[in-house]
């Protein structure tokens, strides 16, 4: 399969009055046509910024894409002019945002908002766009789409609005759908519905999906590949099963052990990762995770480990399996330097 998206050494900074915030520090990943990539990380790890950079959706200044290339279908997104990138946005790459409460224009009927994209990219006239909008709303599971189309966002519930956002994202049959924490603002039952919906639509249309979340549980049931981000670095990059069975980075380990498990002893305290993420203006010289890491060795404080292929003793070299990459000086099984 061909690479649909090839991100190489993406670096994004924010120039603020306090200093330069290094939000994304040279991340690289590839996404196959029809693949689902999960990006996991806590707040401020650069996961949203990294995808917003791809579509040049960050206000520049203060944001600055310092370096990198993002080849989408043979074209470098980062080198595109405003006009070229506008033709890609919403059309070939669609994005769904976190908060469906605020992502819809409160004083525009939802049909008009979806129609806008259709008229813009597909050159549809108003009645065709309306017809297609009703189809889309039906498709994402909104009952009585014919009536809903003339409603305002405040008349819909949160889950409904996220469905509208998904319909909006799908309106122009994108090849890549970026979902930026689309379920974070929803309650758990609706989360499951939305995930199932996106999964079904992905299987049906064959589009690729980048799913950004801080919830490893969501990723487990959805993604093929996972990137774990910390302080703007990719710290681990692996196939989803690999990551859960055999995490190679202490941060990933920490994230996994901080998940509550079904059947856990109720009196047992939930594991946390001690400390807080580093200040992105003054990143420490070594590994950014070192101050919080239980496996820390001297080298960690001096040198930032590169992302390298790690030994995968569980199932070495399975056909089609992508390499398991991690950025750590330590073998987490032995606690010894590699």
């Amino acid at each position: 399969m061909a690479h649909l998206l090839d991100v190489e050494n993406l670096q994004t900074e924010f120039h603020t009055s306090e200093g330069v915030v290094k939000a994304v520090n040279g991340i690289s990943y590839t996404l196959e046509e029809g693949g689902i990539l999960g990006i996991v990380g806590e707040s401020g790890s650069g996961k949203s910024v990294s995808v917003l950079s791809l579509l040049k959706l960050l206000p520049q200044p203060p944001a600055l894409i310092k370096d990198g290339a993002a080849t989408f279908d043979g074209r470098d997104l980062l080198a595109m002019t405003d006009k070229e990138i506008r033709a890609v946005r919403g059309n070939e790459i669609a994005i769904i945002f976190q908060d469906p409460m605020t992502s819809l224009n409160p004083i525009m009927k939802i049909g008009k908002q979806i129609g806008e994209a259709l008229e813009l990219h597909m050159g549809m006239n108003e009645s065709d766009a309306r017809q297609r909008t009703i189809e889309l709303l039906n498709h994402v599971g909104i009952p009585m789409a014919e009536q809903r189309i003339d409603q305002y966002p405040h008349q819909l519930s949160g889950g409904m609005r996220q469905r509208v956002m998904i319909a909006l994202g799908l309106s122009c049959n994108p090849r890549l759908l970026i979902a930026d924490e689309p379920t974070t603002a929803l309650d758990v039952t609706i989360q499951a519905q939305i995930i199932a919906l996106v999964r079904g639509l992905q299987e049906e249309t064959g589009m690729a999906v980048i799913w950004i979340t801080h919830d490893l549980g969501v990723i487990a049931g959805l993604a093929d590949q996972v990137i774990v981000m910390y302080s703007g670095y990719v710290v681990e990059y692996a196939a989803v099963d690999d990551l859960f069975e055999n995490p190679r980075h202490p941060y990933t380990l920490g994230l996994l052990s901080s998940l509550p498990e079904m059947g856990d002893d109720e009196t047992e305290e939930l594991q946390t990762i001690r400390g807080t993420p580093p200040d992105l203006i003054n990143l420490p010289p070594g590994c950014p995770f070192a101050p919080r890491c239980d496996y820390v060795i001297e080298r960690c404080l001096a040198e930032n480990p590169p992302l390298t292929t790690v030994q995968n003793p569980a199932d070495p070299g399975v056909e089609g399996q992508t390499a398991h990459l991690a950025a750590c000086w330590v073998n987490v099984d032995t606690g010894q330097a590699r």
Partner: protein
Amino acid sequence: MNTKPPSPTTLSDASASEASKFEGILNGSDAQELVESQGFWRTTWRRLLRHPVGRIGLVIVVILVIMALFAPLLSPYDPNAIDFTNRFSPPTFAHPMGTDDFGRDTLSRILYGARISLMVGVIAVGIAGSVGTFLGMVSGYTSRRWLDETIMRGMDILFAFPAILLAIAIMAALGKGVANAMVAIGLVYIPIFARIARGAVLSVRNEEYVKAARALGTPSYVILPRHLLPNAMAPLIVEVSLSLAFAILAEAALSFFGLGTQPPDPSWGRMLSEGRAYFQQSFWMALFPGLAIMFSVMGFNFLGDGLRDALDPKMKQVLEAKNR
């Protein structure tokens, strides 16, 4: 400024409780029923009618508009008809507001004067509102710092002069006449609209739905009028009403100085200045035009106040809570 009209809502999603947090109303059993929403404008209109001061303002403005539209039908005399047998007539049944030094009927002149006042007001505010709003929105939305700075510093320079003085200076450059008065008043009020529009755009430009529209590939020239302007509209509407009051007053002032409306056209400001000379013997010549100016300025101000509260009920509740 995303005022959400409170309206009964329907929910068919499983997240009924989710939405109820935002709507407060839940029509329990039949969750599938769709309820017709009350439009934003209708809600605003109803709130305005309930607003005690706004209602008075609305009535005055409506009377003013009727006066202006139907002046030929309502006037008992030709406003410019000179009748030397009837100079300085005090208010009588034949001349309810008396006559002036040429024997012209004051009531008729006031009715026709409403036309000029309103026309100058509407056109001047039209100029100020459209140019100012455009500049302010561009200034607020652009990510180019120099463009924002250039526009707003230009506005600051205009703002630095007292409005009426600047209008007089512009009139001096353009020459006398009612058309030039409109341009001058319009220019003077551009900065107010620019500032309000910029502030309103700044408050909504980082909303998620603007980001979402950009993520859909919508170009700026569509985002500005379609997503930003309507959401930034409320303070601008209020300012239109308040500026109409200022513009009417400014026109009266310019005409009072002999710069605006030229004789024999009936302008309230002009009538006031003519009446001033005879104030001790025939006060009605100045009194009635003065009252006309006062009531119309008051009317637009009241209407503006009412609109402000009607368009932003949350702010009003906050203020009331504070005063309590």
